């Protein structure tokens, strides 16, 4: 805390940090194992994948760590101020193949950064085609108070 410099010091860190575990449609480090998009998987594999993600939410709820989980559509609209008396300027792309596109997130409330990493690694083990782990990169971000 800033108190450290200018106020009496009793620095107790927040005991329950929140983290956002971001999943991406694209972007981030090179995939550990490249997979085709999900619409090209066997239907059972898609089901297994979705079930796994629901299971993650369920387990996080049971452990008292769940805050939120959301999925986002792939459609992306960039918007900016158009200037005085002008309409907002928008662009739907096309965007470079490498640009980040967030697919969704889990928000968790956990004891430590280590625990957030552990949960992220578990999410990353989600089954892909043939039930093999996907090794997907998960972006772990701490939520500010």
């Amino acid at each position, binding site marked *: 805390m800033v108190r450290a410099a200018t106020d009496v010091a009793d620095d107790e860190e927040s005991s329950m940090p929140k983290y956002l575990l971001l999943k991406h449609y694209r972007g981030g480090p090179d995939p550990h194992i490249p997979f085709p998009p999900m619409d090209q998987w066997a239907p059972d594999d898609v089901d297994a994948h979705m079930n796994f993600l629901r299971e993650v939410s369920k387990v996080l709820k049971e452990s008292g*760590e769940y805050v939120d989980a959301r999925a986002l559509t792939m459609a992306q609209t960039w918007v900016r101020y158009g200037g005085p008396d002008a309409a907002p300027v928008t662009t739907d792309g096309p965007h470079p193949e490498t640009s980040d596109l967030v697919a969704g997130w889990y928000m968790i409330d956990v004891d430590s950064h280590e625990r957030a990493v552990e949960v992220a690694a578990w999410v990353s083990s989600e089954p892909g085609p043939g039930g093999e782990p996907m090794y997907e990169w998960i972006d772990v971000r701490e939520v500010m108070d």
Partner: protein
Amino acid sequence: MSGEWRPGEVDLLVRSLAPKALAALLRRGEDFATAEDAVQDAIVEALRVWPERPPRDPQAWLIAVSQRRLIDARRSESARHRREAAVADEPAQGPTELGDDTLLLLFCCCHPDLSPASQIALTLRAVGGLTTSDIADAFFVPEATMAQRISRAKRTVRDRQFTEPGDLAVVLRVVSLVYHAGHGRRNDLASEAIRLARQLTLATPEPEARGLLALLLLQHSRLPARSDAQGRFVPLDEQDRSVWDTNEIAEGIDVLQRALAEDRHGRYQMLAAIAALHADATTSADTDWPQILEWYDDLVALTTEPDAAVVLNRAVAVGHVRGAAAGLAETDRVSAVLGEQQQWYAVRAYLFEMAGDFASAGDAYAAAAARTTRVAERDHLVRRAARARARLRHQPAD
């Protein structure tokens, strides 16, 4: 009758009686998890009924209703529990010493097997008498998540003996964590922590419990000055001291003096002594830094391996007493441990600014801003960085 209650009075009364009701059930050998649920039901019932129909003996009412809820819970479970329910129906024993009950409850809630988050949640519910929904709101998590966290925590402590003495240091830390979860942001929790600390001082003569209460009172006294009209964070040296709460300061100093008179100084008493010296200064310039430094020296000496955070905060006092360069040299001692944390950069930025080195101050404030996890703090540090860099531009060139 309802007109007799002052606003918030029912709530506070119910919650102050809740731990005694819980302790009464536990003394009869009920297990913690079931008893705590029953008391929580009784609290909800009391909040509903009391405003219109105040009980003649609120404590007896709460115990009786908790007892009934417990029996109801047993009956609805299954026939095999009937025997136990019969035992629970026995007439109540007279209440024993409240102080011991509160302490034993706190030991139970702050059991070392629990994570800090669970210790806090359980303490707020079982001792603070808060509802799960209140606690969930305070920590910005869904109520279902908090309910799970509490019930898991209760499962963990279920088999612990209620009479088992616990670790006071853990209890003090949990109360302190509750305070800091509320300080400046979630005001209810700050007040709740002070209430818990006050209960603790009634339950144990340990001077450190008084030290913690004094520290929290003194920190809380400055709360009205910690943010300006726009909600921006105001650091101690720029606060409007006329809005500090003089009642809290007076009480804090009084509690501290009685603790120090025991001559068993500990961490919280020392931190409170430093807070008291800040409270004593009518202006920032009047601060008795030499005496603050002495308390920091004692704090450092308290542990065989010096606490890095204490060494870092001591560096500020060193800066004020022996000059910014000496303070900066002190921060070097803990760069290996804290060198990647925002506090380290924030302290150095403050000392660089004191030394008139605005280039380094700007960089250090920016580095601190990039590392903090609190929005209000980041905004403050960014403003400080910008201010240092503006001063640099306006500084006459050598």
